């Protein structure tokens, strides 16, 4: 017989609180995609090797395909759907991904943008090797990475301008 032992958890996702009842072995990626309809987090390998499922948990990048949902109880999660500006406008990183041709098939894009945001929060003026090092866990099969690196360089420059309305913190902006 099948037995079930479910858990009630609270996740704050992109600023919204959700109470969810999940199996103890349920993965965060499945909860985000199937329960909350946030399909921007992609299943690329299921084993934490490609980075397509990257989300931020309490501000830290994490691989949703190897993270148990119950382990995120009470935590704040930001997905690609949550990083646009409060007014609905694109985040500068998203703008630059479009402007610098960093997007081809788009399947790695959400994870790449979240990693870029994480980098610029920690290091607003990264060198090119620092950018490459930070996103090396995210595989892109289409672009050869150069467009992505250029987009992050440009986003860093843009976000460093005094005119930038808000900082690079993706979590803060999700509110």
């Amino acid at each position, binding site marked *: 017989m099948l037995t079930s032992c479910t858990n009630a958890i609270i996740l704050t996702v992109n600023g919204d609180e959700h109470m969810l009842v999940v199996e103890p072995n349920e993965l965060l990626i499945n909860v985000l995609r199937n329960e909350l309809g946030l399909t921007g987090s992609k299943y690329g390998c299921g084993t934490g090797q490609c980075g397509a499922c990257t989300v931020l948990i309490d501000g830290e990048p994490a691989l949703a395909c190897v993270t148990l949902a119950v382990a995120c109880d009470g935590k704040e999660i930001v997905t690609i*759907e949550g990083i646009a500006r409060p007014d609905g406008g694109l985040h500068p990183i998203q703008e630059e991904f479009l402007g610098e041709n960093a*997007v081809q*098939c788009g*399947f790695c894009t959400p994870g790449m943008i979240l990693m870029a945001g994480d980098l610029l929060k920690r290091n607003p003026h990264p060198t090119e090797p620092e*950018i*490459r090092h930070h996103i090396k866990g995210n595989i892109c099969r289409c672009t050869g990475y150069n467009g992505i690196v250029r987009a992050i360089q440009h986003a860093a420059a843009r976000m460093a301008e005094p005119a930038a309305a808000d900082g690079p913190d993706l979590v803060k902006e999700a509110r």
Partner: protein
Amino acid sequence: MGREAREMEARELRTVGAVTRRKDGLAKVTGTETYASDMELPYMLHARVLRSPYPHARVVSIDTSAAERMGAICITPDDVPDIRYNERQVSVPVKTYRDRTVLPWVVRQVGEGVAAVAARTEALAERAMRAIKVEWEELPAVFDAHKAMADDAPQIYENVLLGDAEFPIEHNVACFRQVSVGDVAVGFEEADLIVEREYQTGRVYHAQMEPKAALCRPLADGGIELWATLQSIHNTRQLLGRIFDLPLSRIRVHRSTIGGAFGSSIQMNTPVAICVALALKARKPVKLVLTREEDMYDHCKYPAEISLKYGVKRDGTIVAGELKTLVDIGAHNIQAYPLLGCMSGWFVSLYRMPHMNFEGTAVYTNKTPACAMQGYGNPDVSFAVESHMDIIAEKLDIDPIELRIKNYVGLGEEFWGQGPTVRSIIRSCGVEEMLRKGAPMIGWDERGRPEDKTGRYRRGIGVGRTFHTSGTGAAMPGEVIDYSTAMVTVNEDGSVDMSTALMCHGGGTLDACAKLVAEEMGVSFDLVGVSPASTTDTGYDVCTHATRGVYCGGGSAVKAAKSAKAVLLDFASRLIEVNPEALQIAPDPVTGEGVIFLEGAADKRITVGEVAKTAQLKGWGTAIAVESHRMVNCPPCFVTNFVEVEVDTWTGEVRVPRAVCAVDAGTVVNPDLAAGQLEGGLCRGIGQALLEDTAYDPVTGEMTCGGMYIDYKLYTAEDMAPVDDVKVFFADTYEPSGPFGAKGIGEAANNAVAAAVMNALQNALGIRFQFIPITPDMILAAIHGWACEGVLPA
């Protein structure tokens, strides 16, 4: 078109060649783009597939009772139509080898599905799948193409179908092709120098980011609706109709955004038919998404062993060439016959040879089936031929670039775009321009000689040049089907809808078609919408493959736009009383809306929207046109790569610190997206040269990487050259037969890279490597003279 006319047109281009934001970009950067794997339907069941642990085995019995007691819907080979098919529908039927069924009684590779289940949740489906009991009879297996052809080798097939006729398989040879021109023996007699070498390329995995997925909804009338990872909605529909005996009018296949292709879904992949069979039995929607491990066992690139011989005159003129290849196709013959034809075509079209012979043999083994991957045999042939060009140049003491310029097939000569039956005359060619312009950009003349290089880190510079075809059109029908259909509609507000069954794999094909339509219609790019597409609302399009999207698909879109424009101008002529042939359309510089006008007459102006709206109100109809169109050429998009490598002679590791990528794509429709394709092709090509391969355990038949990225390494951002050190440029050409002068780019981006890397390695170390990928252990073995498989005496 003459130079003057071309310059006039180039001056007037408004949208084609402009840098624009890709139309799907907003959805992709906000995570809202919907891929097949993102689709959900109410009451949808989830599917899992029971796969063979053996490389070759007969299914004696399958017991699904335990799975059914869990409430799962199960299918076994008994539940699927007994129809043998080939998942690829691009070739004409008489040249199509059919060797597989939806679920087989005999498995021929590890990972081949024999049963499948659908249940309410993925977890339940997984449990049910594991509860199925299969009794197997293991059969002897073979993993090496040479051993497979031996008299005592296990027989993988007794026969297959060729078209609808039984075709016996002997010595596991799936097919053989021989193509010759002139008399190669005579040619070699005339030669002053004969160079002969062996080459080998790897069994690379496509590694498209999206694992294959399918979602099928059964309909009340017995039909089906499908969303899946695929490159051709129409071929998928035709094949499903054949397998499941359904009229095509009851099959609706939707175009879904695809998370990368690289050829991996030219065919209708295995999960599609399994998903459909489950949904028809369950009478509920069923979704099947492969795991990465399953996906890696589903397909790979065709590897090749190549034996190459060229005869040349003392002045470097090639007089004869012979290329023999052995291709290990794995467990199924998806497209080996056209592959061999294409390989002969790439060989013929690289360098002029009065006498040529090509022989290709495709052999079954008990491994993952190979299918097309970016370049379709071209990276393999080009790696061999371009390595050979450097060897010949060195032996004759000619500059490698000059040897290439002396012999390349160019303007006015014949190009075989898809094997011997698909030929066209080259009418645009930037080969010499790219070689001459690229050489100083990489520092060609300063590359030095390997014997003068010392120290731990040694740098070398290499060149590789080749092409890809732009589609598979030709004046006469060949082995390959090629045409596209497009519909263009002028809306009542002046915007325009473009509808086509073409796909965008990420490179910008649909954006390019929208630009071509905008250019032709005289409206802004923003006002052209790309309609969602399915088989019920688009005409036939063969497949987005063979670098045909912009040239062939764009060609049909421009034709439809011309026809819709003719209707529109006819309406306009009635309203402003000007002969329609005297009218022009141009976008308003502010609004982008099309304005129809008579040059020099300020009162003879009306907007496209006013005309369309008035025509509607007066009941004249809609300015709409559908065109089903075949391009009668397949112009080569030439490509040239220069790369610099840096070898660490202590560890054998190789970096590519600098590269120059150039393509002759005719008029470049999306310059920034085209540059991105060249950068991506560079990365994949370096991977093919230095990293990527799949190996098999000779006992278990499993891949040694297990289908995992942890052991199937891919290049990361950190491995690639700095952004400023990868230079991209386009040859200044115009293809007279193309839409606004455009040709393709896609596959060309990757085709010459491995050759350039290997030539650069030779320049760094003085060692000629003939196997790819060449890994650090092989490089160390070569440097130190250790015995190592894959390192041959130069």
